[in-house]
């Protein structure tokens, strides 16, 4: 087992720069907090980064891979958040129980929103999905006796005693979630067909149907998975923050996910992670809670960056960098480092 892992690492990770960077990056996320003392503010930002990375990847699975462009992804985030907060407030349950329940309710929300969404596509679907979190937001503010209205539900317990422990819990949950979503969307996988089918639905739904794929079932699955991981992210978020407020449902929350994904690279699992780690973490590290110029004008900088990215790197930063670093062998389709002269497996010339 260990030997196979080592062999895998030596022959399919080391020669490919993109994979090597991903492995080093995740290893660094796990190791650095153990070695270096990280101030509490930065620790908190990193914790939120992990949560939002999961949120962004779940949007990419639903909207990027399956092509169901959802502009109300905050619905699942907010449902997970409010569900686990309400369970704590009224029943006094602990985060260990309420977070999974919140995630399950968010999954059901995903399945329920899918039914009207099945009939629509393109801009119509985006408009429809944009409406759902706003409707829930209106209800949350209208019934303020139950939900706390604009102030939200305060005094939620943290998921662990120290900031570092919280970070590790969120990091592990995020890593597992991303691995699951990566495997589910892997079109070349021998074991799961979902990746291939998601791609087929995005490219041409009618052709997918004609090939005997029950597209409705797979769209439901995509909505459920998107809802599940966004719900987990939402529930974790409010427990780390301590407050479940209407900010989890606003339009900005939905669009942030889209912005991160488009920045990093749509239809790639690593793209959203890069997007969140660059845009969210960097802006907050440089901003330090609104004390510097960057901190006060985060939104402006973010929107200008998005406009520039859309104009000059429409495929996203991570994909752009990856295309510079890697090249596919024209004969055996194996990924090679861009600086190699011939393919590492079959020896075909790469130029």
């Amino acid at each position, binding site marked *: 087992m260990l030997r196979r892992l080592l062999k895998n690492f030596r022959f399919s990770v080391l020669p490919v720069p993109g994979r090597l960077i991903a492995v080093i990056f995740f290893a660094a996320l796990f190791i650095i907090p153990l070695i270096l003392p990280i101030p509490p503010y930065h620790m908190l930002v990193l914790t939120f980064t992990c949560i939002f990375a999961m949120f962004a990847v779940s949007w990419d699975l639903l909207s990027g891979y399956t092509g169901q*462009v959802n502009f109300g992804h905050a619905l699942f985030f907010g449902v997970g958040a409010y569900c686990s907060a309400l369970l704590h407030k009224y029943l006094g349950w602990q985060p260990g129980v309420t977070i999974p329940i919140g995630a399950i309710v968010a999954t059901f929300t995903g399945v329920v929103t899918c039914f*009207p969404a099945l009939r629509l596509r393109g*801009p*119509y679907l985006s408009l429809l999905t944009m409406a759902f979190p706003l409707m829930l937001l*209106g209800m949350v*503010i209208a019934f303020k006796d139950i939900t706390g209205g604009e102030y939200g539900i305060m005094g939620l317990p943290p998921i662990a005693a120290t900031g570092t422990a919280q970070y590790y819990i969120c990091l592990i949950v995020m890593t597992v979630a991303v691995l699951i979503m990566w495997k589910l969307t892997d079109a070349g996988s021998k074991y799961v067909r979902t990746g291939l089918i998601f791609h087929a639905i995005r490219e041409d739904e009618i052709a997918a149907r004609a090939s005997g794929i029950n597209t409705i079932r797979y769209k439901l699955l995509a909505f459920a998975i998107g809802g599940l991981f966004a719900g987990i992210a939402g529930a974790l978020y409010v427990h780390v923050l301590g407050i479940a407020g209407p900010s989890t449902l606003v339009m900005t929350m939905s669009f942030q996910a889209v912005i991160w994904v488009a920045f990093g690279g749509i239809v790639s699992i690593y793209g959203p992670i890069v997007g969140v780690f660059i845009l969210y973490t960097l802006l907050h590290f440089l901003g330090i809670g609104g004390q510097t110029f960057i901190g006060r004008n985060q*939104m402006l900088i973010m929107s200008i960056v998005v406009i520039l990215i859309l104009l000059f790197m429409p495929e996203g930063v991570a994909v752009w960098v990856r295309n510079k670093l890697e090249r596919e062998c024209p004969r055996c389709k194996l990924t090679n480092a861009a600086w190699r002269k011939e393919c590492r497996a079959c020896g075909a010339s790469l130029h």
Partner: protein
Amino acid sequence: MPLIGRLIIQTLLKGGVYGLLASGFSLIFGMAHIINLAHTAFFMLAAYGMFYFMRELGWGAAQAIALTLVGVTLLGLLAYRFLLDRVRQHIVAVLLMTIALALAFQEVMLLAFGAHFQSAPTIIAGFTRILGVSVPNQQLLTLGIVAVVMVMLWLLLTKTKLGVSIRATAQDAEIASLMGISVPRTLLITMGIATALAAVAGISVAPLWTVYPEMWTPPLVMVMVIVVLGGLGSTKGSFIGAFIIALVENLVIFFMPSGSYLATVFALLAMVIVLVVRPAGLFGTIFEEEKL
């Protein structure tokens, strides 16, 4: 009776403003399939323009209106030419581009004027008694502007050569181009008209509504509801939808003063039902490739 009078005036006022915004939104969607989420941001910019020129610089109404209208329209044209036109083919890119643009405008206004609630000075003072209620003349002026602009838009679209080419491009861009219509130019002109409509709406509400950097989001939601209800791409549908939604919103606010948040919920629910039951809306045509 005074209650009904006030309800009618308020509905006409709100419906007119929503109608101006929604017809521009619908026009550019019907032409270029662009869902322009920055549409109401131009409305916000126009309101700020009026506030800045009239309150801060103390200009007269005529200069302020002219400069705001020209400035905002020019900005819309530049945004279309250099930003939107390049990503027009991809729906996610268009939505992102327009929302980023709207957020950028919002943040620039926040930097320039701060997060204060402002208002532009009224252009004409005084009250008139209609239907047993005294209506500020400013509101009547707004109603007048809306009516004139509506008639002008209708004349432009139905009676002029430009209107014919706009409608032809909306129906089928390829055939329109074969008939000798320059499609890119028509799209640019349509974007100019749409932005100018948003600017007129902003100019006419600047003295009536509060002006603040986030003032573009509540009308944006309403405009989307109206456009879906009236049928995406149908100008007539947008105006009728605007008055229906304005009536519903005002009825909810009049009878449930605390329920202004529920008004949005009901409006959005109406949009969801229309989208699911009849995606073409009341007057729209559904595009062939959107069908399932």
